[in-house]
């Protein structure tokens, strides 16, 4: 049995594609025309890469907030298959 480690990665075969779930909220959801998507990512990807895939290459607006798995982070955060990556405008509750 082969044990895949961090240095010997599992080959990306058919059926092993790496995907993340993307969510958009509020005014950003309206601008994008949908509330999210599932996008394929490369083996090494950041939240910024996910944005580019999901937005069709648009620049990330400077005030947009980024969350990975429901925790605030920034666009340079690494993401892995199965993560949930959310993009949204500044929050205005209360």
């Amino acid at each position, binding site marked *: 049995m082969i044990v895949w480690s961090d240095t010997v990665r599992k080959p990306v075969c058919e059926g092993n594609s790496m995907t993340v779930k993307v969510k958009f909220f509020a005014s950003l959801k309206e601008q994008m025309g949908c509330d999210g998507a599932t996008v394929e990512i490369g083996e090494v990807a950041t939240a910024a890469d996910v944005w580019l895939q999901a937005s069709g290459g648009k620049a990330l607006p400077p005030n947009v907030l980024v969350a990975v798995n429901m925790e605030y982070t920034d666009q340079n955060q690494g993401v892995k298959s199965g993560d949930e990556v959310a993009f949204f405008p500044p929050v205005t*509750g209360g």
Partner: protein
Amino acid sequence: MKIAVDEAPFSPWEALAQYERDVVQPAFPGKFGAAATFIGTMRDFNEGDGVHAMTLEHYPGMTEKQLQLILDEAFNKWKLLDALLLHRVGELKPQEPIVLVAVWSAHRKDAFEACRHIMEALKSRAPFWKKEQLDGGAGRWVEKNSDGY
């Protein structure tokens, strides 16, 4: 401690009375000397325009998680006995309550300071978004909060 995010309208006064009677008093009989509360209510005006309705959107899961983190921080920083945090989502009309923050402590300093901190942290970190329906018919996203200080 209780956190709830709900589409159903609520009465903050009834929720406060019920929570204190059913939860705080039995858990801390004779121990709390202070309760501080903040209630946020929908106005019928904003930035010079009349507003007749509002939609509050949130991020289910993350919103509750962030509210829990904010309360945990407050419990670590101040001596609190209990807290209640209720927030509306969905369709709202003017005069309807949006948010209730209530904290109980032995002394007023902890209650006042924690209540203020929780409310300001919620405004800047909890993922909620307001879209106003203006009297002219247009929809407008609220883009930033007013200064709380």
